[in-house]
Protein backbone atom coordinates (compact mmCIF):
# COMPACT_ATOMS: atom_id res chain seq x y z
CA UNK A 1 0.00 0.00 0.00
CA UNK A 2 2.38 2.71 1.15
CA UNK A 3 5.21 3.22 -1.26
CA UNK A 4 8.26 5.25 -0.52
CA UNK A 5 8.42 6.67 -4.01
CA UNK A 6 6.75 9.93 -4.94
CA UNK A 7 3.10 9.38 -6.00
CA UNK A 8 2.75 9.30 -9.77
CA UNK A 9 -0.71 10.83 -9.77
CA UNK A 10 -0.48 14.60 -10.10
CA UNK A 11 -2.68 17.37 -8.78
CA UNK A 12 -2.43 16.81 -5.03
CA UNK A 13 -1.23 20.33 -4.29
CA UNK A 14 -3.85 21.94 -6.53
CA UNK A 15 -6.88 19.93 -5.35
CA UNK A 16 -5.85 19.88 -1.70
CA UNK A 17 -5.13 23.61 -1.75
CA UNK A 18 -8.49 24.37 -3.30
CA UNK A 19 -10.34 22.01 -0.94
CA UNK A 20 -8.82 23.50 2.19
CA UNK A 21 -9.20 27.11 1.03
CA UNK A 22 -12.82 26.65 -0.01
CA UNK A 23 -13.75 24.71 3.14
CA UNK A 24 -12.11 27.37 5.27
CA UNK A 25 -13.98 30.21 3.55
CA UNK A 26 -17.38 28.52 3.45
CA UNK A 27 -17.38 26.48 6.67
CA UNK A 28 -14.56 27.13 9.13
CA UNK A 29 -14.32 30.92 9.08
CA UNK A 30 -18.07 31.48 9.53
CA UNK A 31 -18.24 28.91 12.35
CA UNK A 32 -15.25 30.57 14.01
CA UNK A 33 -17.06 33.91 13.78
CA UNK A 34 -20.00 32.37 15.61
CA UNK A 35 -17.91 31.14 18.53
CA UNK A 36 -15.91 34.37 18.66
CA UNK A 37 -19.10 36.42 18.78
CA UNK A 38 -20.54 34.26 21.54
CA UNK A 39 -17.38 34.79 23.60
CA UNK A 40 -17.26 38.58 23.07
CA UNK A 41 -19.28 39.49 26.16
CA UNK A 42 -18.17 38.37 29.62
CA UNK A 43 -18.55 34.76 30.75
CA UNK A 44 -21.26 35.86 33.17
CA UNK A 45 -23.32 37.39 30.36
CA UNK A 46 -22.80 34.33 28.18
CA UNK A 47 -23.88 32.03 31.01
CA UNK A 48 -26.90 34.25 31.76
CA UNK A 49 -27.98 33.98 28.11
CA UNK A 50 -27.65 30.24 27.77
CA UNK A 51 -29.12 29.45 31.22
CA UNK A 52 -32.07 31.84 30.89
CA UNK A 53 -35.32 29.98 31.77
CA UNK A 54 -36.76 30.62 28.30
CA UNK A 55 -33.64 29.14 26.68
CA UNK A 56 -33.63 26.15 29.01
CA UNK A 57 -37.32 25.53 28.27
CA UNK A 58 -36.47 25.57 24.54
CA UNK A 59 -33.62 23.04 24.99
CA UNK A 60 -35.91 20.75 26.97
CA UNK A 61 -38.66 20.94 24.34
CA UNK A 62 -36.21 20.45 21.45
CA UNK A 63 -34.63 17.43 23.13
CA UNK A 64 -37.73 15.53 24.19
CA UNK A 65 -39.64 16.08 20.95
CA UNK A 66 -36.54 15.03 18.95
CA UNK A 67 -36.02 11.93 21.08
CA UNK A 68 -39.65 10.91 20.76
CA UNK A 69 -39.64 11.46 16.99
CA UNK A 70 -36.40 9.48 16.62
CA UNK A 71 -37.93 6.71 18.74
CA UNK A 72 -41.03 6.54 16.53
CA UNK A 73 -38.77 6.44 13.50
CA UNK A 74 -36.67 3.71 15.13
CA UNK A 75 -39.66 1.40 15.57
CA UNK A 76 -41.46 2.09 12.30
CA UNK A 77 -38.22 2.49 10.35
CA UNK A 78 -37.19 -1.00 11.43
CA UNK A 79 -40.59 -2.40 10.43
CA UNK A 80 -40.44 -0.58 7.08
CA UNK A 81 -36.92 -1.83 6.33
CA UNK A 82 -37.96 -5.36 7.33
CA UNK A 83 -41.01 -5.41 5.08
CA UNK A 84 -39.15 -3.81 2.16
CA UNK A 85 -36.34 -6.37 2.32
CA UNK A 86 -38.19 -9.53 3.31
CA UNK A 87 -41.71 -9.46 1.88
CA UNK A 88 -42.40 -9.22 -1.82
CA UNK A 89 -45.60 -7.25 -2.37
CA UNK A 90 -46.96 -5.30 -5.33
CA UNK A 91 -45.70 -1.71 -5.43
CA UNK A 92 -42.64 -2.44 -3.30
CA UNK A 93 -40.30 -0.48 -5.59
CA UNK A 94 -42.61 2.54 -5.42
CA UNK A 95 -42.86 2.44 -1.62
CA UNK A 96 -39.08 2.05 -1.41
CA UNK A 97 -38.56 5.16 -3.54
CA UNK A 98 -41.14 7.15 -1.60
CA UNK A 99 -39.25 6.67 1.68
CA UNK A 100 -36.76 9.32 0.49
CA UNK A 101 -39.50 11.94 0.08
CA UNK A 102 -38.64 13.80 3.33
CA UNK A 103 -35.08 14.31 2.01
CA UNK A 104 -36.35 15.73 -1.26
CA UNK A 105 -39.34 17.76 -0.07
CA UNK A 106 -38.46 21.29 1.14
CA UNK A 107 -39.12 21.63 4.86
CA UNK A 108 -41.38 24.65 4.42
CA UNK A 109 -43.73 22.59 2.25
CA UNK A 110 -43.76 19.82 4.86
CA UNK A 111 -44.47 22.44 7.52
CA UNK A 112 -47.51 24.06 5.92
CA UNK A 113 -48.91 20.71 4.75
CA UNK A 114 -48.68 18.98 8.14
CA UNK A 115 -50.12 22.08 9.83
CA UNK A 116 -53.07 22.09 7.43
CA UNK A 117 -53.67 18.36 8.02
CA UNK A 118 -53.50 18.57 11.82
CA UNK A 119 -55.11 22.01 12.37
CA UNK A 120 -58.39 21.83 14.34
CA UNK A 121 -60.36 22.05 11.05
CA UNK A 122 -57.94 19.87 9.04
CA UNK A 123 -58.44 16.39 7.57
CA UNK A 124 -56.92 14.68 10.61
CA UNK A 125 -57.12 17.50 13.14
CA UNK A 126 -60.92 17.57 13.22
CA UNK A 127 -61.10 13.92 14.34
CA UNK A 128 -58.30 14.30 16.85
CA UNK A 129 -59.83 17.54 18.13
CA UNK A 130 -63.15 15.74 18.71
CA UNK A 131 -61.46 13.36 21.15
CA UNK A 132 -59.54 16.18 22.81
CA UNK A 133 -56.11 15.63 21.25
CA UNK A 134 -54.42 18.83 20.13
CA UNK A 135 -51.62 18.31 17.61
CA UNK A 136 -51.11 21.52 15.63
CA UNK A 137 -49.94 24.50 17.72
CA UNK A 138 -48.94 22.07 20.51
CA UNK A 139 -45.80 20.05 21.36
CA UNK A 140 -47.33 16.98 19.69
CA UNK A 141 -47.30 18.87 16.38
CA UNK A 142 -43.54 19.35 16.73
CA UNK A 143 -43.19 15.57 17.19
CA UNK A 144 -45.22 14.99 14.00
CA UNK A 145 -43.03 17.37 11.97
CA UNK A 146 -39.80 15.91 13.35
CA UNK A 147 -41.00 12.36 12.67
CA UNK A 148 -41.63 13.35 9.05
CA UNK A 149 -38.22 14.89 8.43
CA UNK A 150 -36.35 12.04 10.18
CA UNK A 151 -38.31 9.20 8.58
CA UNK A 152 -35.77 7.94 5.99
CA UNK A 153 -32.71 7.60 8.27
CA UNK A 154 -33.47 4.36 10.12
CA UNK A 155 -34.89 2.72 6.99
CA UNK A 156 -31.79 3.61 4.98
CA UNK A 157 -29.30 2.49 7.63
CA UNK A 158 -31.04 -0.81 8.53
CA UNK A 159 -32.03 -1.82 4.97
CA UNK A 160 -28.51 -2.62 3.62
CA UNK A 161 -27.62 -4.63 6.73
CA UNK A 162 -30.80 -6.70 6.40
CA UNK A 163 -30.11 -7.25 2.69
CA UNK A 164 -26.63 -8.61 3.41
CA UNK A 165 -27.90 -10.84 6.16
CA UNK A 166 -28.40 -14.37 4.90
CA UNK A 167 -31.00 -16.66 6.37
CA UNK A 168 -28.38 -19.03 7.85
CA UNK A 169 -28.37 -17.39 11.29
CA UNK A 170 -32.13 -17.57 11.62
CA UNK A 171 -32.26 -21.12 10.31
CA UNK A 172 -29.59 -22.14 12.79
CA UNK A 173 -31.55 -20.52 15.61
CA UNK A 174 -34.77 -22.18 14.46
CA UNK A 175 -33.12 -25.59 14.13
CA UNK A 176 -31.82 -25.22 17.67
CA UNK A 177 -35.38 -24.79 18.84
CA UNK A 178 -35.80 -21.01 19.11
CA UNK A 179 -39.22 -19.66 18.19
CA UNK A 180 -39.56 -16.67 15.87
CA UNK A 181 -39.69 -14.03 18.60
CA UNK A 182 -36.68 -15.48 20.39
CA UNK A 183 -34.78 -15.55 17.11
CA UNK A 184 -35.64 -11.90 16.50
CA UNK A 185 -34.74 -10.70 19.99
CA UNK A 186 -31.63 -12.82 20.55
CA UNK A 187 -30.19 -13.18 17.05
CA UNK A 188 -31.49 -10.53 14.67
CA UNK A 189 -31.81 -7.50 16.95
CA UNK A 190 -28.21 -7.66 18.23
CA UNK A 191 -27.01 -7.88 14.62
CA UNK A 192 -29.13 -4.95 13.53
CA UNK A 193 -28.47 -2.85 16.64
CA UNK A 194 -25.47 -0.81 15.39
CA UNK A 195 -27.34 0.16 12.20
CA UNK A 196 -30.53 0.85 14.13
CA UNK A 197 -28.73 3.09 16.62
CA UNK A 198 -26.91 4.91 13.80
CA UNK A 199 -30.23 5.67 12.11
CA UNK A 200 -31.78 6.70 15.42
CA UNK A 201 -28.89 9.08 16.15
CA UNK A 202 -29.05 10.59 12.64
CA UNK A 203 -32.78 11.11 12.93
CA UNK A 204 -32.29 12.68 16.36
CA UNK A 205 -29.47 14.95 15.18
CA UNK A 206 -31.52 16.14 12.22
CA UNK A 207 -34.52 16.80 14.46
CA UNK A 208 -32.56 18.86 16.98
CA UNK A 209 -31.56 21.45 14.36
CA UNK A 210 -34.80 21.43 12.36
CA UNK A 211 -36.60 24.71 11.79
CA UNK A 212 -38.62 24.91 8.58
CA UNK A 213 -41.17 22.21 9.20
CA UNK A 214 -41.58 22.99 12.90
CA UNK A 215 -42.06 26.74 12.77
CA UNK A 216 -45.47 26.47 11.09
CA UNK A 217 -46.96 23.70 13.22
CA UNK A 218 -45.59 24.56 16.67
CA UNK A 219 -47.45 27.80 17.40
CA UNK A 220 -44.20 29.26 18.79
CA UNK A 221 -45.33 30.16 22.32
CA UNK A 222 -42.36 31.12 24.55
CA UNK A 223 -41.76 28.53 27.32
CA UNK A 224 -44.31 26.13 25.79
CA UNK A 225 -43.78 25.45 22.08
CA UNK A 226 -40.68 27.48 21.24
CA UNK A 227 -37.75 25.40 19.95
CA UNK A 228 -34.16 26.64 20.26
CA UNK A 229 -33.67 27.55 16.56
CA UNK A 230 -36.75 29.78 16.77
CA UNK A 231 -35.40 31.49 19.90
CA UNK A 232 -32.23 32.27 17.91
CA UNK A 233 -34.34 33.93 15.20
CA UNK A 234 -36.18 35.96 17.85
CA UNK A 235 -32.87 37.20 19.27
CA UNK A 236 -31.66 38.13 15.78
CA UNK A 237 -34.83 40.10 15.11
CA UNK A 238 -34.18 42.04 18.32
CA UNK A 239 -30.60 42.71 17.08
CA UNK A 240 -29.25 40.73 20.05
CA UNK A 241 -26.42 39.28 17.93
CA UNK A 242 -24.34 38.15 20.91
CA UNK A 243 -27.34 36.33 22.41
CA UNK A 244 -28.11 34.63 19.11
CA UNK A 245 -24.46 33.64 18.77
CA UNK A 246 -24.44 32.22 22.31
CA UNK A 247 -27.45 29.98 21.65
CA UNK A 248 -26.08 29.12 18.20
CA UNK A 249 -22.81 28.01 19.81
CA UNK A 250 -24.69 25.76 22.23
CA UNK A 251 -26.41 24.14 19.23
CA UNK A 252 -23.14 23.91 17.30
CA UNK A 253 -21.41 22.19 20.20
CA UNK A 254 -24.28 19.76 20.57
CA UNK A 255 -24.29 19.01 16.80
CA UNK A 256 -20.56 18.40 16.87
CA UNK A 257 -20.82 15.94 19.76
CA UNK A 258 -23.65 14.14 17.92
CA UNK A 259 -21.61 14.05 14.70
CA UNK A 260 -18.68 12.41 16.52
CA UNK A 261 -21.09 9.96 18.15
CA UNK A 262 -22.64 9.07 14.79
CA UNK A 263 -19.19 8.57 13.24
CA UNK A 264 -18.37 6.21 16.11
CA UNK A 265 -21.62 4.30 15.62
CA UNK A 266 -21.01 4.00 11.88
CA UNK A 267 -17.54 2.64 12.55
CA UNK A 268 -19.02 0.05 14.94
CA UNK A 269 -21.64 -0.81 12.32
CA UNK A 270 -18.98 -1.33 9.62
CA UNK A 271 -16.69 -3.46 11.78
CA UNK A 272 -19.70 -5.52 12.91
CA UNK A 273 -20.73 -6.06 9.31
CA UNK A 274 -17.20 -6.75 8.13
CA UNK A 275 -16.73 -9.43 10.80
Amino acid at each position, binding site marked *: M*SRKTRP*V*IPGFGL*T*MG*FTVTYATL*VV*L*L*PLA*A*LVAKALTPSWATLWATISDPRAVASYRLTLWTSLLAAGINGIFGL*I*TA*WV*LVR*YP*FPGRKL*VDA*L*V*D*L*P*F*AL*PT*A*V*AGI*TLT*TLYAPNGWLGRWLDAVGIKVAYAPLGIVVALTFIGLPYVV*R*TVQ*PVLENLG*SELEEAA*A*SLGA*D*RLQTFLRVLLPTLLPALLTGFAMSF*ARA*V*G*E*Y*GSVVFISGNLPMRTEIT*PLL*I*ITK*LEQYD*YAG*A*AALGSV*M*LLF*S*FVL*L*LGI*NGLQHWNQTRQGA
Partner: protein
Amino acid sequence: MAAGAPAIDLKHGPSATKARIATEGPLARLILIGAMLGFLGLFLILPLVAVFTEALARGFGVYWAAITEPDARAAIRLTLLAAGIAVPLNVVFGLAASWAIAKFSFRGKQLLITMIDLPFAVSPIVAGLIYVLLYGAQGWFTPALKAADLQIIFAVPGIVLATLFVTFPFVARELIPLMEQQGRDREEAALSLGASGWQTFRRITLPSVRWGLLYGIILCNARAMGEFGAVSVVSGHIRGHTNTIPLHVEILYNEYQFAAAFAVASLLTFLALVTLVAQILVGQHGNREAPVIP
Protein backbone atom coordinates in the same frame (compact mmCIF):
# COMPACT_ATOMS: atom_id res chain seq x y z
CA MET B 1 -29.48 -14.02 -0.70
CA ALA B 2 -29.49 -17.67 0.24
CA ALA B 3 -33.13 -17.48 1.28
CA GLY B 4 -35.07 -20.56 0.26
CA ALA B 5 -31.95 -22.59 -0.45
CA PRO B 6 -32.77 -26.07 0.74
CA ALA B 7 -30.46 -27.58 3.31
CA ILE B 8 -30.27 -31.02 4.75
CA ASP B 9 -31.40 -31.06 8.32
CA LEU B 10 -31.10 -34.44 9.96
CA LYS B 11 -32.73 -33.52 13.24
CA HIS B 12 -35.88 -31.80 12.06
CA GLY B 13 -36.70 -33.69 8.92
CA PRO B 14 -37.85 -32.02 5.72
CA SER B 15 -36.41 -28.59 5.00
CA ALA B 16 -39.86 -27.20 4.27
CA THR B 17 -40.61 -27.21 8.00
CA LYS B 18 -37.44 -25.32 8.71
CA ALA B 19 -38.15 -22.70 6.08
CA ARG B 20 -41.48 -22.12 7.76
CA ILE B 21 -39.92 -21.77 11.20
CA ALA B 22 -37.34 -19.29 9.93
CA THR B 23 -39.98 -16.85 8.74
CA GLU B 24 -43.05 -15.16 10.15
CA GLY B 25 -46.55 -16.58 10.03
CA PRO B 26 -49.10 -15.05 7.64
CA LEU B 27 -50.78 -13.07 10.44
CA ALA B 28 -47.51 -11.53 11.62
CA ARG B 29 -46.68 -10.63 8.03
CA LEU B 30 -50.02 -8.96 7.58
CA ILE B 31 -49.60 -6.94 10.78
CA LEU B 32 -46.10 -5.80 9.81
CA ILE B 33 -47.11 -4.83 6.26
CA GLY B 34 -50.17 -3.06 7.70
CA ALA B 35 -48.05 -1.16 10.22
CA MET B 36 -45.67 -0.04 7.48
CA LEU B 37 -48.39 1.03 5.08
CA GLY B 38 -50.25 2.83 7.90
CA PHE B 39 -47.12 4.70 8.97
CA LEU B 40 -46.03 5.66 5.45
CA GLY B 41 -49.61 6.46 4.43
CA LEU B 42 -50.01 8.84 7.36
CA PHE B 43 -46.62 10.53 7.04
CA LEU B 44 -45.87 10.42 3.30
CA ILE B 45 -48.91 9.74 1.10
CA LEU B 46 -51.44 11.89 2.94
CA PRO B 47 -49.23 15.03 2.93
CA LEU B 48 -48.50 14.50 -0.78
CA VAL B 49 -52.20 14.27 -1.59
CA ALA B 50 -52.93 17.26 0.65
CA VAL B 51 -50.45 19.55 -1.15
CA PHE B 52 -52.09 19.07 -4.53
CA THR B 53 -55.65 19.08 -3.15
CA GLU B 54 -55.10 22.35 -1.29
CA ALA B 55 -53.31 23.86 -4.29
CA LEU B 56 -56.30 23.24 -6.54
CA ALA B 57 -58.93 23.93 -3.83
CA ARG B 58 -59.91 27.27 -5.37
CA GLY B 59 -59.76 26.13 -8.96
CA PHE B 60 -57.15 26.09 -11.69
CA GLY B 61 -57.48 29.84 -12.33
CA VAL B 62 -56.27 30.72 -8.83
CA TYR B 63 -53.53 28.10 -9.14
CA TRP B 64 -52.23 29.48 -12.42
CA ALA B 65 -52.42 33.08 -11.19
CA ALA B 66 -50.48 32.19 -8.02
CA ILE B 67 -47.56 30.63 -9.88
CA THR B 68 -47.35 33.24 -12.63
CA GLU B 69 -47.76 36.52 -10.70
CA PRO B 70 -44.65 38.77 -10.72
CA ASP B 71 -43.57 38.06 -7.11
CA ALA B 72 -43.76 34.30 -7.72
CA ARG B 73 -41.80 34.67 -10.96
CA ALA B 74 -39.16 36.74 -9.15
CA ALA B 75 -38.93 34.05 -6.45
CA ILE B 76 -38.49 31.33 -9.08
CA ARG B 77 -35.79 33.38 -10.82
CA LEU B 78 -33.90 33.94 -7.55
CA THR B 79 -34.10 30.25 -6.61
CA LEU B 80 -32.74 29.26 -10.03
CA LEU B 81 -29.95 31.83 -9.69
CA ALA B 82 -28.92 30.68 -6.19
CA ALA B 83 -28.93 27.01 -7.21
CA GLY B 84 -27.20 27.91 -10.49
CA ILE B 85 -24.28 29.39 -8.58
CA ALA B 86 -24.15 27.09 -5.55
CA VAL B 87 -24.40 23.75 -7.35
CA PRO B 88 -21.54 24.26 -9.86
CA LEU B 89 -19.24 25.65 -7.14
CA ASN B 90 -19.91 22.65 -4.92
CA VAL B 91 -19.37 20.31 -7.88
CA VAL B 92 -15.91 21.78 -8.46
CA PHE B 93 -15.22 21.51 -4.73
CA GLY B 94 -16.56 17.94 -4.59
CA LEU B 95 -14.33 16.83 -7.49
CA ALA B 96 -11.24 18.49 -6.01
CA ALA B 97 -11.88 17.17 -2.49
CA SER B 98 -12.59 13.61 -3.59
CA TRP B 99 -9.50 13.58 -5.85
CA ALA B 100 -7.28 14.78 -3.00
CA ILE B 101 -8.85 12.49 -0.39
CA ALA B 102 -9.33 9.32 -2.43
CA LYS B 103 -6.20 9.26 -4.60
CA PHE B 104 -3.63 10.28 -1.99
CA SER B 105 -2.83 9.39 1.59
CA PHE B 106 -2.00 12.15 4.04
CA ARG B 107 -2.29 12.90 7.71
CA GLY B 108 -5.49 14.47 9.00
CA LYS B 109 -7.63 12.90 6.27
CA GLN B 110 -10.31 11.82 8.73
CA LEU B 111 -10.41 15.31 10.22
CA LEU B 112 -10.91 16.81 6.76
CA ILE B 113 -13.79 14.39 6.06
CA THR B 114 -15.42 15.30 9.38
CA MET B 115 -15.10 18.97 8.47
CA ILE B 116 -16.78 18.34 5.11
CA ASP B 117 -19.62 16.62 7.01
CA LEU B 118 -20.16 19.55 9.39
CA PRO B 119 -22.77 21.46 7.34
CA PHE B 120 -25.02 18.37 7.45
CA ALA B 121 -24.86 18.37 11.24
CA VAL B 122 -25.32 22.10 11.77
CA SER B 123 -28.84 23.50 12.14
CA PRO B 124 -29.96 25.56 9.12
CA ILE B 125 -30.60 28.45 11.49
CA VAL B 126 -26.99 28.35 12.67
CA ALA B 127 -25.95 28.19 8.99
CA GLY B 128 -27.77 31.45 8.33
CA LEU B 129 -26.66 33.02 11.59
CA ILE B 130 -22.93 32.58 10.91
CA TYR B 131 -23.17 34.64 7.72
CA VAL B 132 -25.13 37.38 9.49
CA LEU B 133 -22.34 37.51 12.09
CA LEU B 134 -19.69 37.81 9.36
CA TYR B 135 -21.40 40.19 6.97
CA GLY B 136 -24.38 41.64 8.90
CA ALA B 137 -24.84 44.92 10.77
CA GLN B 138 -22.07 44.34 13.36
CA GLY B 139 -20.11 41.79 11.35
CA TRP B 140 -16.37 41.23 10.96
CA PHE B 141 -16.30 42.21 7.30
CA THR B 142 -18.96 44.92 7.41
CA PRO B 143 -16.61 47.94 7.37
CA ALA B 144 -14.83 46.58 4.30
CA LEU B 145 -18.15 45.85 2.60
CA LYS B 146 -19.45 49.33 3.40
CA ALA B 147 -16.34 50.83 1.85
CA ALA B 148 -16.91 48.78 -1.30
CA ASP B 149 -20.65 49.58 -1.27
CA LEU B 150 -21.53 45.90 -1.23
CA GLN B 151 -24.49 44.44 0.61
CA ILE B 152 -24.50 40.74 1.39
CA ILE B 153 -27.03 40.20 4.17
CA PHE B 154 -30.65 40.93 3.21
CA ALA B 155 -29.47 40.71 -0.40
CA VAL B 156 -28.85 38.12 -3.08
CA PRO B 157 -25.18 37.32 -2.19
CA GLY B 158 -26.22 36.29 1.32
CA ILE B 159 -28.78 33.89 -0.09
CA VAL B 160 -26.15 32.36 -2.38
CA LEU B 161 -23.69 32.00 0.53
CA ALA B 162 -26.26 30.33 2.80
CA THR B 163 -27.22 27.96 -0.03
CA LEU B 164 -23.55 27.22 -0.65
CA PHE B 165 -23.10 26.25 3.01
CA VAL B 166 -26.08 23.90 3.34
CA THR B 167 -25.31 22.09 0.06
CA PHE B 168 -21.54 22.00 0.65
CA PRO B 169 -21.07 18.25 1.45
CA PHE B 170 -23.39 16.58 -1.09
CA VAL B 171 -21.14 16.02 -4.12
CA ALA B 172 -17.98 15.41 -2.08
CA ARG B 173 -19.65 12.84 0.17
CA GLU B 174 -21.02 11.00 -2.86
CA LEU B 175 -17.69 10.93 -4.72
CA ILE B 176 -15.19 10.17 -1.94
CA PRO B 177 -16.28 6.55 -1.25
CA LEU B 178 -16.77 5.92 -4.98
CA MET B 179 -13.26 7.11 -5.91
CA GLU B 180 -11.73 5.27 -2.95
CA GLN B 181 -13.39 2.08 -4.08
CA GLN B 182 -12.03 2.48 -7.61
CA GLY B 183 -8.45 2.94 -6.44
CA ARG B 184 -5.81 4.52 -8.64
CA ASP B 185 -4.50 1.69 -10.83
CA ARG B 186 -6.19 2.91 -13.97
CA GLU B 187 -5.00 6.47 -13.44
CA GLU B 188 -1.46 5.23 -12.93
CA ALA B 189 -1.69 3.11 -16.07
CA ALA B 190 -2.90 6.08 -18.12
CA LEU B 191 -0.13 8.30 -16.76
CA SER B 192 2.54 5.72 -17.47
CA LEU B 193 1.28 5.54 -21.06
CA GLY B 194 1.96 9.25 -21.38
CA ALA B 195 -1.38 10.90 -20.64
CA SER B 196 -1.24 14.25 -18.88
CA GLY B 197 -2.84 14.70 -15.47
CA TRP B 198 -5.79 16.61 -16.91
CA GLN B 199 -6.31 14.01 -19.67
CA THR B 200 -6.27 11.23 -17.07
CA PHE B 201 -8.85 13.03 -14.99
CA ARG B 202 -11.11 13.79 -17.96
CA ARG B 203 -10.81 10.49 -19.82
CA ILE B 204 -10.39 7.98 -16.97
CA THR B 205 -11.62 9.30 -13.62
CA LEU B 206 -14.56 11.45 -14.64
CA PRO B 207 -16.30 8.80 -16.82
CA SER B 208 -15.96 6.16 -14.11
CA VAL B 209 -17.65 8.31 -11.46
CA ARG B 210 -20.19 9.99 -13.74
CA TRP B 211 -23.28 8.34 -12.27
CA GLY B 212 -22.20 9.03 -8.72
CA LEU B 213 -21.47 12.62 -9.69
CA LEU B 214 -24.88 12.99 -11.28
CA TYR B 215 -26.50 11.51 -8.19
CA GLY B 216 -24.69 14.02 -5.97
CA ILE B 217 -25.72 16.89 -8.25
CA ILE B 218 -29.38 15.84 -8.08
CA LEU B 219 -29.37 15.77 -4.27
CA CYS B 220 -27.37 19.01 -4.08
CA ASN B 221 -29.78 20.77 -6.43
CA ALA B 222 -32.88 19.59 -4.56
CA ARG B 223 -31.53 20.95 -1.30
CA ALA B 224 -30.34 24.19 -2.93
CA MET B 225 -33.77 24.93 -4.36
CA GLY B 226 -35.68 23.86 -1.26
CA GLU B 227 -33.59 25.34 1.55
CA PHE B 228 -35.68 27.39 3.93
CA GLY B 229 -34.15 27.95 7.39
CA ALA B 230 -30.70 29.21 6.43
CA VAL B 231 -31.97 31.36 3.59
CA SER B 232 -34.73 32.74 5.78
CA VAL B 233 -32.19 34.12 8.28
CA VAL B 234 -30.13 36.01 5.68
CA SER B 235 -32.85 37.06 3.25
CA GLY B 236 -34.73 39.85 4.97
CA HIS B 237 -37.86 38.71 3.10
CA ILE B 238 -38.04 41.55 0.63
CA ARG B 239 -40.81 40.64 -1.79
CA GLY B 240 -39.77 40.46 -5.40
CA HIS B 241 -36.11 40.95 -4.44
CA THR B 242 -34.79 38.52 -1.83
CA ASN B 243 -37.56 35.91 -1.73
CA THR B 244 -36.81 32.41 -2.89
CA ILE B 245 -39.64 29.97 -3.67
CA PRO B 246 -39.78 28.47 -0.13
CA LEU B 247 -39.78 31.97 1.41
CA HIS B 248 -42.54 33.04 -0.95
CA VAL B 249 -44.59 30.04 0.23
CA GLU B 250 -44.11 31.16 3.84
CA ILE B 251 -45.23 34.73 3.13
CA LEU B 252 -48.37 33.60 1.28
CA TYR B 253 -49.20 31.13 4.06
CA ASN B 254 -48.78 33.74 6.79
CA GLU B 255 -51.06 36.08 4.82
CA TYR B 256 -53.74 33.35 4.86
CA GLN B 257 -53.55 32.97 1.07
CA PHE B 258 -53.63 29.21 1.51
CA ALA B 259 -54.54 28.20 -2.05
CA ALA B 260 -51.77 30.38 -3.46
CA ALA B 261 -49.28 29.14 -0.84
CA PHE B 262 -50.02 25.53 -1.72
CA ALA B 263 -49.97 26.31 -5.45
CA VAL B 264 -46.39 27.57 -5.15
CA ALA B 265 -45.61 24.73 -2.72
CA SER B 266 -46.84 22.26 -5.34
CA LEU B 267 -44.04 23.43 -7.65
CA LEU B 268 -41.52 22.44 -4.97
CA THR B 269 -43.36 19.16 -4.39
CA PHE B 270 -43.19 18.47 -8.11
CA LEU B 271 -39.44 19.17 -7.97
CA ALA B 272 -39.15 16.69 -5.06
CA LEU B 273 -40.97 14.00 -7.06
CA VAL B 274 -38.76 14.63 -10.10
CA THR B 275 -35.76 14.34 -7.78
CA LEU B 276 -36.98 10.96 -6.50
CA VAL B 277 -37.51 9.64 -10.04
CA ALA B 278 -34.08 10.90 -11.11
CA GLN B 279 -32.57 9.22 -8.05
CA ILE B 280 -34.09 5.89 -9.07
CA LEU B 281 -32.97 6.21 -12.70
CA VAL B 282 -29.43 7.24 -11.82
CA GLY B 283 -29.20 4.84 -8.87
CA GLN B 284 -29.68 1.89 -11.22
CA HIS B 285 -26.36 2.72 -12.86
CA GLY B 286 -23.02 2.33 -11.22
CA ASN B 287 -22.27 0.68 -7.94
CA ARG B 288 -22.90 3.21 -5.25
CA GLU B 289 -21.34 2.20 -1.97
CA ALA B 290 -23.74 3.63 0.57
CA PRO B 291 -26.43 6.25 0.21
CA VAL B 292 -25.48 9.82 1.07
CA ILE B 293 -27.51 10.70 4.10
CA PRO B 294 -27.90 14.42 4.64
